[in-house]
Each structure stands twice: as C-alpha cells, then as structure tokens.
C-alpha cells in the first residue's frame, strides 16, 4: 500500500507540468491540455485523501469535478473552433481582439 505522500507528490508534479504548459505554450489546444492535466491532479488529490480518511465525500466531489471538467472542455473547444474560424489560427497571440 503506497502512502499518501507519494500521491500528493505525483499531484504536485502534474500541476507543475500543467503550469509549465500554460506559461510556455501559445497553442490554444495545448493550453487546454495543460488545464486538463491540472484538473486531473486535483482529482487525484481528492481521491487519495478520501482513501486515507476512509470518507466517501472525496469520491463524490471527484465525480462532480470530472463532470464539470467535461463541460469545460466542450465549451473550450467550441471557443477554439470559432476563434479558428475568425482568425484562421489557433495561436493565442493572434487573438488580438475578441470582437465578433
């Protein structure tokens, strides 16, 4: 049985990778990937603490969080598609104006 601290450390590593992606990448789809990685690190923490405290509320919250993340991806990809249609580009530095 792996101890809680290892799961927390893996979660820290995943959040750091996600922050690196958000800071460095200029591609909108890749920034969405980085957001997903951060959201998954949060879910991993919820489940790890829920296991160690033997409490089911962490799992309930993780289920809610996964569903919200799915909705976020749907809206984010819709925004990326319409921005691509407007600017013919998915580089976020090209999105100078967000007017229609």
């Amino acid at each position: 049985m792996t101890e809680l601290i290892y799961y927390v450390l893996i979660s820290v590593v995943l959040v750091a990778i996600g922050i690196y992606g958000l800071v460095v990448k200029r591609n909108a789809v890749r920034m969405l990937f980085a957001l997903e990685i951060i959201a998954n690190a949060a879910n991993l923490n919820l489940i790890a603490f829920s296991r160690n405290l033997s409490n089911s509320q962490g799992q309930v919250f993780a289920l809610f969080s996964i569903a919200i993340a799915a909705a976020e991806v749907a809206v984010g990809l819709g925004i990326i598609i319409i921005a691509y249609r407007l600017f013919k580009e998915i580089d976020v530095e090209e999105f100078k104006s967000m007017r229609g």
Partner: protein
Amino acid sequence: MVDPVFIGVAVLTVGSAIISLESRELIYGAIALAISMMGIAGFFLLLDSPFVAMFQIAVYVGAVAVLVIFTVMLVRTQALFTTKEDKGRKSAGVILMLIFMASIGAIFIISGLNSQTFGNPKAPAVDFTSIGQQMLTYYSPALIALALTLAGAVIGALALARREEEIEQKND
C-alpha cells in the same frame, strides 16, 4: 515502501503528460493526453475507488479525448505547427516548473503529511453504495445544479460552434 505498480503508473502518467505538451504533432499530443488520463484512472484503481476510475475512463478517454481529436482534425494542419515559442520563454517556463515542484514538494515532505499519524492507508475502502446514497440524499441539490450546468454548457458549445453567415462573409 513504494509499490512497483505505483511507480509504473506514475512514470506512464507523468511521461505521457509531458509528451502531450511537447509532441510535435497535436494529434499525438491528444493521444498522449488520453494515455495520461488512463494513468490517472489507474491511480484511482490503486486507491480502491473503481467507480471513479470507470467514470474517469468513460468521461476522459471516451468523451474528452474523442472531442479533442475531432477538433484537431477540424483545424487546418498548417495551423498546428505553430512553433513560435522563443527559447527564453521556454527555459523560463522550465525554471518556473522546477521551482514550483521543489518548493511545494518540500513543503509537503516536511509537513505532517509524511508521518503515519495522519490518516490511515489501511482503513477499509469506501463502498460505492455510500457514494450513491450521498449523491441522492445530501448532495442531491449539487447533482441537480451539475445537471443544469452540463446542459447549459452543451447548449452553449452548440451555439458557439454554429456556422454564422456573417462571419463567413467577413472572412471572404
């Protein structure tokens, strides 16, 4: 003592998370992201929560990865090769990542989380009937709000992705 299965899943998850951000082609990045989500589901299985693991696989690998791959295919291929990130920003990002990792990791290691007094890894696993009970009793308003949020998000995504004639004309 660290489980060898844990090490394997950790290497898979972190490695494919890095590949998903660093791969040259976006479509391989999407596939690597799906593999990383599978790794997270593996962690959930290791943590004795099979219900959440199956939900994670169904939502992330089943829905989100397919949605991302379709979007990548819809966007023109030339736009995917935007390697306009300069070296300075990239190295600054790597340094920021390492500083974040080291500092937050050190905080967790020296905190009381490392000692055996916090929590009990050998406690009995959570039965998923209690998850269902909690969702339908105490958290039922949250469940309804979540359903409305999902419906609103799907309708919003459909409205965003709709073809508008004026936008097409403006681009021509």
